[in-house]
């Protein structure tokens, strides 16, 4: 009983929010191009779904995010593992890593677009860059936190390096790794949008900009809602991964 009630609570809160939004539009009398009503946004959503443009642009952004995440997470975990294992490598690379974080990715996004063109590659790279650091840091922290006693145990059993990695280090650092992925997944949406806002011919960021230029504010709302949906789904996927891989943890 209690569980089903609290589930409805979330939905209830959303309905109240939409009603409140509608009420503000009606009472303030703001023109549609400043603040569209929920109904305006809804019809715009249906229209863009019907002509296929919304799904097309969403799929472009999703592709950029997926590739960006894949590249960023792969590089970050591999490099993070190496950094965790070698203090000298950490000393050599840390000035670059810290410096790269001091420069906001948003600031170098235009540069990346100039260098890599306004196609999908520049967005994937921006996305990967923004995802890279939190995942890297969490990988290092996770691998370093593996209890030394478990290394002893594995070594007394004459485990190979590969076995130590796959049977000890990877599962032991999984909680911290997934926490990094959770941050990275949300950031990856920002990365893709920043890239698209700088210069693009497709994607949700492009849709946002077109809506903005044409005073099609309902379209901007639709694009934002899709972005939120994307971010939430990614977050949901990470939560599923946590449920799958961390079921041994106390909940």
């Amino acid at each position: 009983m209690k569980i089903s009630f609290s589930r409805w609570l979330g939905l209830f809160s959303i309905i109240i929010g939409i009603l409140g939004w509608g009420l503000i539009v009606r009472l303030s009398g703001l023109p549609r191009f400043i603040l569209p009503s929920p109904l305006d946004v809804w019809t715009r959503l249906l229209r863009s779904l019907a002509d296929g443009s919304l799904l097309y642009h969403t799929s472009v952004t999703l592709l950029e995010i997926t590739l960006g995440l894949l590249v960023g997470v792969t590089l970050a975990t591999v490099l993070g593992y190496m950094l965790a294992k070698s203090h000298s490598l950490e000393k050599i690379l840390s000035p670059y890593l810290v410096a790269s974080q001091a420069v906001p990715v948003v600031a170098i996004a235009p540069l990346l677009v100039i260098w890599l063109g306004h196609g999908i590659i520049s967005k994937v790279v921006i996305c990967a860059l923004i995802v890279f650091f939190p995942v890297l840091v969490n990988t290092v922290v996770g691998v370093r936190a593996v209890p030394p006693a478990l290394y002893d145990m594995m070594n007394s059993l004459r485990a190979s390096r590969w076995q130590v990695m796959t049977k000890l280090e990877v599962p032991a650092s999984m909680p911290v790794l997934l926490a990094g992925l959770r941050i990275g997944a949300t950031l990856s949406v920002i990365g893709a949008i920043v890239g698209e806002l700088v210069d693009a011919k497709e994607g949700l960021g492009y849709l946002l900009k077109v809506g903005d230029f044409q005073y099609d504010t309902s379209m901007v709302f639709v694009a934002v809602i899709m972005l939120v949906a994307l971010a939430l789904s990614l977050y949901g996927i990470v939560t599923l991964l946590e449920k799958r891989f961390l079921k041994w943890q106390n909940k």
Partner: protein
Amino acid sequence: MKNPPILTVKNLSVVFPDSNGGLHALENISFEVCPRDFICFLGPSGSGKTTLLRILAGLLKPTSGQVDFIHNQQPKIGMVFQQAHLMPWRSVMDNIKLPLELEGMDESQARIKAQEMVELVGLNGFEDSWPRELSGGMAQRVGIARALIHDPDLLLLDEPFASLDAITRERMWVELSRIWQVKQKTIIMVTHSINESLFLADDVLVLTQRPGQIKLEVKVDLPRPRNDDIRYTPHFGKLARKLRGAIE
């Protein structure tokens, strides 16, 4: 007639490098271990007991001296630590069969052997539990099962019951005694408990304060199987007093 020793340690010394000339952990340790012996090193903290076990386990190289196993081969080691040191992401069953996985045994065979071990240490019904759900004593039973499953040549016990409460600890002595009798393993244990060493071992070697040296060797000629009552016999008391006298 005793069997030839499977392990011979000669003039073993360990020095850990530090700022003032090095820390002497162990000095001139020599002893022999025969198959199916239960040997116990007794000593105060800081006598290098754990260092000795780490050398025997191959986790640490001695500064000087020799550690020779029979036929010069690398022995299979089973190790039990002060804490159970289970992998929290593995169930009881999966923790126990880890050594077999590392040896590349196929899954179904490993499960059968692990099930045997579960029964040996009395954990039936807990196969699918997570380590966090176990009490200290149960976790240590899993640790013992894991150390035995791959049929090691040498079982090394590093104060395995030190973290347990007194009553659980005494129960585990009886358990370990029973398991040792079933499995016929060669065991080397370190501890700082006189009662524990007398209850379990055939041979007790007393180590001095750092640098650890063997000060006294006591043959424990108490009959087996040993039970709780044996601790209240005069002979047990005599041996205990002898050991107590040797520990500074």
